[in-house]
């Protein structure tokens, strides 16, 4: 990787971090408007359920500056598989239904309509031990944090041996810790 690229990465990471804090404040207010079902819709479970899943995905690992597509990328293979796999389809559909039922019980509306993140988290907490939640969380963990495409956004370098490691690429660099 050349130097420019490395700087780019660094810059985008700084921006990512800076924007995370700003966006964290506004996220709740934006609510579901941010998530047009068109961003991601799964045939097997329908528009409404797709949008709900996407919202849920963003609530599980909220990185406000990450575009919807990264979350949708995790959900898409699941939904595709659900078209062929009735058990999975049921897991997703029933899971979304349970999510809405819980949201209705607590806040009198569907999950997608609950505007405050803290409230949606309360809904999720109630379902956190279900196979449905665990499945989505596990797939997301791999899909977000084990996603090579996103590693530069988190400031993680990924595979380095083909670039000769960091022996000549700044492993010793640190300009802020005093006394170093």
């Amino acid at each position, binding site marked *: 990787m050349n130097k420019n690229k490395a700087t780019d990465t*660094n810059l985008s*990471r700084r921006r*990512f*971090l800076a924007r*995370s804090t700003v966006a*964290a404040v506004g996220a709740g207010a934006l609510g579901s408007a941010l998530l047009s079902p068109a961003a991601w819709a799964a045939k097997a479970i329908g528009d409404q359920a797709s949008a709900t899943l996407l919202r849920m995905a963003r*609530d*599980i*690992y*909220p*990185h406000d500056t990450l575009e919807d597509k990264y979350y949708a990328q995790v959900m898409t293979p699941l939904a595709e598989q659900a078209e062929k796999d009735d058990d999975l389809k049921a897991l997703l559909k029933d899971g979304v239904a349970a999510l809405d039922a819980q949201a209705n019980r607590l806040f009198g509306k569907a999950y997608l309509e609950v505007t405050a*993140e803290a409230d949606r*988290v309360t809904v*999720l907490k109630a379902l*956190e031990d279900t196979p449905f939640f665990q499945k989505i*969380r596990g797939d997301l*963990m*791999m899909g*977000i*944090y*084990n996603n090579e495409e996103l*590693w530069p956004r*988190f*400031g*993680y*370098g*990924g*595979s*380095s*041996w083909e670039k*000769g*490691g*960091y*022996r000549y*690429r*700044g*492993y*010793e*660099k*640190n300009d*802020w*810790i*005093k*006394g*170093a």
Partner: protein
Amino acid sequence: MKTAFDLNDDSLVVIVGSGAGGGTLSHELAKKGIRCVVLEAGKRFERKDIENDEWKMFSKITWLDKRITAGPTALTQTSPNLPTWLVKGVGGATIHWAGVALRFQEHEFKMRSLNGEIAGANVLDWPISYADLAPYYEKAEAKLGVTGTKASGQPYHEPSSHFKVIAEGSRRVGAHCRPAPLAINTTPRDGRPACQVTGFCMQGCRFGAKWSTMESSIPKAEATGNIEVRPDSMVLRIEHDDSGKVTGVLYVDKDGNQHFQKARLVAVAANSIESPRLLLNSASSLFPQGLANSSGQVGKNYMTHTGTGIYGEMPDTVSMYKSPVVPGLVSTWADNDPSRGHVGGYELEILHIGLPFMSAFLKPGGWGRELANSLANYDNMAGFWICGEDMAVESNSVTLHPTEKDQYGLPIPVVYKGNHANDTAMIKHSNEQATAILEAAGATKVNVMDRYPASHNMGTNRMSARPQDGVVNKWGQTHDINNLFISDGSQFTSSAAENPTLTIVALAIRQAEYIADQMQQQMI
């Protein structure tokens, strides 16, 4: 030319497992002209199989046969079938060890005499002293090329950013951070290149800069012509004759065919879970409790180190992944000072993991904004893995499941591990000191991890002076059967504050001398 021995050749030494213990033993015996067959359950990996990718390597090399995590800890929930993090492959866990190569301290061989009896623990002195092992530590350091030792002549690694942050934090609290002695070349040595700082030591070294039996000892042993390594060969049981002497082992190859390999001597080095499991699975009418188990101690006293991970979020970039995995150690509390509220010591070992593992281990099963924010701070993280002496407790153990069997038809192991009160006190103390260092370096948030699957596994066939207290004598020879040896980390009488591998290697070098001598004297 590849050496091949006959199944009926009963003059051979059969070694079960090719990791730190077995791989080393095979090399040392081969150099003395002693012919061995190494049976290894896993397959053979090449350097080109090594990738800089945490999950890919995890699924490629990890021992994933079903085990049961038991005990009163959270690990039973977060990792119900993976109590340990070990490798199934030629090279064993040396493929993914971090290379930290420390000697035990003198007092750590006699914790029982030093601290007296500890209620609820089963602490015992080793039947050997530091002085007995010192010459073999020297040989082991030369063999592995441990940096910063006289034996290897290799300098330490230069400080990485991660090292600098921790070193400064340590200085600010009056602690001292030193470069870690690593079995990782800093200069081309012994046919292996210098470290290129890829930062993936725990996924295997793509360059071969890190010592492993896969990279070094096994190929060297094979080059003598005295060793045959059979990968994909899972040993099912050890057989014996009417006099109680072992005669060989039954194993299954990758096509599912069973073979009986005769032996003059069997050395078990299948790690601290599989070694006791194999002895227990080899129960017979003569040895109904399992082989070499007259003491009832086979599988008992399982130790893992009190270790946990702890990561601080710094005000600026650390890029900890641009470093050998363990660049340095804070050994300030590695001594035995009961005034801290616990006996035994601990090492704070600077250690990084990548973002993929961080997301899995920072808060196992966790989710939500707080966790996401911490992970967004990955590039600013610095931290430790804590390696503290774990007390031997008899109820911490490897036992056989009464009904459930694995793919080989063997009862699966149940791995029970709880914390002794001393472990709990030590964990508290070490977490506090580590937190203080991280905060002194500027951390705005410190994350203490739950324990993850154990990478250090010790003690389940321990050494003892008296046969009733343990499984093997001071040479690793079982008290009960003179041609049956234990050659891995399960021999450990205590766990000490240090990582185990250098001691496993030193013991194997020493054991090889003894075996050669006994064979020559026709004692075995």
